[in-house]
């Protein structure tokens, strides 16, 4: 992998910034160059929040990405805003718990995950962000899933440590969802 990047977008409070941070840490632990660039604005709930994470073998020139290679969307406004901007042949991970519309990008690999539902089964609906991250990591191969799991452990410490198992379970469920899609895509290509 020379370099890759992903735009993660959703409502504020849906945990995209955190998922991005965990991904950046995981890539950094693997010895890669990273940047994490959030959208920022007045602290207001309900607004949209997004973050761009770049991962590369060489120092990152511009952290500002206008045509991301991958997109992770938690809500409809983000899908409508960013799906048209994804690079040709890119990857789009969609949270179907809240987004019922198709990205309308025939050229892209689209991974659909009912993130809230999957997270609920894993222990907490609040970990939908890590389900999405798992799907992205599996479908893109940007980092090893184990690296992310270690960083989830590092992220939730002290009083928050009790959230580790549910978040890791959610992440793994996401990895499975992403991997299924990748395998089907590979089979379709073989056929």
């Amino acid at each position: 992998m020379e370099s890759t990047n992903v735009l993660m977008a959703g409502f504020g409070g849906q945990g995209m910034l955190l998922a991005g941070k965990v991904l950046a840490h995981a890539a950094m632990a693997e010895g890669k160059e990273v940047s994490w660039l959030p959208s920022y604005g007045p602290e207001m709930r309900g607004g949209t929040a997004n973050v761009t994470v770049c991962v590369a073998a060489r120092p990152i020139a511009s952290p500002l990405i206008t045509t991301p290679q991958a997109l992770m969307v938690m809500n409809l406004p983000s899908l409508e805003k960013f799906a048209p901007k994804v690079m040709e042949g890119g990857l789009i991970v969609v949270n179907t718990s809240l987004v019922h519309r198709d990205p309308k990008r025939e050229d892209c690999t689209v991974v659909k995950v009912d993130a809230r539902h999957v997270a609920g089964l894993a222990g907490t609906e609040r970990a939908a962000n890590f389900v999405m991250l798992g799907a992205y990591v599996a479908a893109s191969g940007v980092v090893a899933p184990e690296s992310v799991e270690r960083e989830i452990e590092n992220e939730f410490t002290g009083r928050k440590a009790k959230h580790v198992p549910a978040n890791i379970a959610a992440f793994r469920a996401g990895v499975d969802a992403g991997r299924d899609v990748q395998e089907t895509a590979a089979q379709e290509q073989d056929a």
Partner: protein
Amino acid sequence: MTKVLMKGNEALGEAAIRAGCVHFFGYPITPQTEVPEYLVKRLPEVGGTFVQAESEIASINMIYGAAGTGVKCLTSSSSPGISLMAEGLSYIAACELPCVLINIMRAGPGLGGILPAQSDYHQATRGHGHGDYQLIVLAPASVQEAVDLMTLAFELSETYRNPVMVCADGMIGQMMEPVEFPTEGRGEPMADNDWALTGSEGRERRIVNSLYLSPEDLDAHNRKLKAKYDLIAEKEVRHELYGETESPDLLLVAFGTMARICKSAIDDLQAGGAKVALFRPITLKPWPYAACREAMDLLPADAPVLNVEMSMGQLIDDVRLAGEGSRRVEFLGAAGGVVPTPEQVAAKIRELLP
């Protein structure tokens, strides 16, 4: 030393402590608020002082007071807040007090917006308060460089007894990147000196003042300041040359975040054989005129220079001064928090290449 992933604003705060600064005075403003939010937690751990001022006017005058007693001190703000510091900066520079201030620029004028911009370039390099004084202005292009320049800022401010501004845009303040700090723990305090107000017991009393009733004395004071600025200009200019540095067909000039975006454009075009260089001033004041002129002289006779900035034509003044009329200087810019993309820069380069 290990790398840590840190937000630019937090890294700037930590770098100040590593440089020996444990006195912070500031007022919240987006997109720099993480500087005070970080330091309010961190300073008590190193025996430091944190004061949330009632305004930036107060912050800069608290700095005047702290710097006047010979301690390393820091304030931090963003564009509208820096405007309010204009008067204080003039006094501090007049009194030759060392201090560091951070400007995490956002888009103006007026209340403008909170997104990244470089539109305080003139303010930083020429503007702010009244009178014949200069700041030293350092412009990082990454979180790591922000840390490195913070360290330098405290050194320069002490050496030259002058306020130093670290001038970055909102993107560098908000972005997380891996950083390595040059030193561990809290750095050294300011060395003893013969000007700080510490209580006059056992010595002649000292006065921190900028009032000169005699015009001859004020003239002499200004000449002394001028000599200092000339010395700084001679010794402290810094820049980077990137890309095709042997015989480029086009030279870009940009600083901070914009320079990084230009680098992406250059990297993308290099594959196609385009020979493009980037000149990046790291010190915005003093400006590296001679080095920039040398870079321009690498170009073929009639090749243009492309000035790229996140403002409407401010940096370009210095690029023209460097060229002294020898070059056509083209302009690409954007304002309001709109950041020119690598693709837009590349398109403009293609348009200009022979």
